[in-house]
């Protein structure tokens, strides 16, 4: 092993984190390399010095501050959260919804036969309405039509409308 390769292993060796095979390789190199032996001793000394720093304790208010921060967090409620909060209400609401759908389906009034679905009925209806449509006086004196604003005058307007 070269001194350069020792760089990646020296700290692991000092801390005892190397695998057995790696450790043996490092020791083999150290036996033949005085500068690396010195470096190992110095790294060990640095590690020992770092152990001398005291551990500080958090202030007595620390936990209370964290709790206060957590308590101030808005409660996230998903759309379905109310199901967990009140299962009885959820059950009642579901039953109501089902009942509404059921009633809506079975109580639907029978649909009247639409005249335009049957050609014969449609023709008969048209023949019945024809006199009314042709009765010009009925249309001309139809009260609601009198309340409408006067139509725009133009040349194509029939004479009957002009007289009105």
């Amino acid at each position, binding site marked *: 092993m070269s001194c350069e390769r020792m*760089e990646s292993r020296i*700290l692991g060796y000092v801390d005892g984190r190397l695998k057995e095979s790696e450790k043996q390789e490092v020791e083999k190199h150290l036996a033949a390399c005085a500068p690396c032996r010195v470096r190992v001793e110095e790294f060990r000394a640095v590690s020992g010095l770092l152990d001398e720093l005291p551990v*500080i304790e958090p202030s007595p208010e620390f*936990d209370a*501050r964290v709790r206060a921060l*957590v308590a101030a967090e808005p409660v*996230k409620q998903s759309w379905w959260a109310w199901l967990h909060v009140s299962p009885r209400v959820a059950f009642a609401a579901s039953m109501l919804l089902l009942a509404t759908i059921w009633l809506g389906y079975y109580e639907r009034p029978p649909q009247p036969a639409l005249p335009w679905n049957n050609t014969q009925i449609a023709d008969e209806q048209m023949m019945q309405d024809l006199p009314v449509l042709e009765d010009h006086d009925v249309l001309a004196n139809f009260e609601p039509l009198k309340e409408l604003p006067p139509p725009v005058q133009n040349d194509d307007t029939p004479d009957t409308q002009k007289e009105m």
Partner: protein
Amino acid sequence: MARTDVQLMLDVKAGDEASFELLLHRYRTPLVNFLYRMVRNREQAEDLAQEVFLRVYRAREDYVPSAKFTTWLFRIATNLALNSVRDNRYHKLEVSIDAPVTADAEDGDERMLDVPEKTPNIEQHLVEDARKKMIRHAIEKLPEKQRAAVLLHKYQELDYAEIAKILSCSESALKSLLFRAYESLRVELAPLVAQQARNQG
């Protein structure tokens, strides 16, 4: 049998607030110490540690145990610390021109914690105090990423794979980072290193 960190976090996810308390109790001291050694300000370190716990709590619903809990926890802490150190550096640049020269408040703060009420030998205490101050300053002088690597490796005893994930680098890059950090510390603390090496030898 004590529940693992991952189990506790999954219980928090399921709505168990007591499990969050256990995680808080388990990690408040390591986090505050790590952050204190990163930012060198006790109050700021506590604020950042509180922020770490808050982020853990906020992320509970999306938590998936894909990595070790400590990897996730210290990744949040490291990112906050690195951002804070960078912000502080700019802040210090702004205020340092007109600022009066004062004693390091943080050293005083820590000294209060270390000194027993009745010191048998004041001279010995002063020597020890100067020694600790030297070590702290040597760590403080390391570039942020090297400092984080040393702190996670030495004090949190995380393995290389975990630290590499926290610092978003490869394991070989991490080993190189740690080697350079120890080289700097060896040079910076040369008098103490020689003394220590003699004592160990």
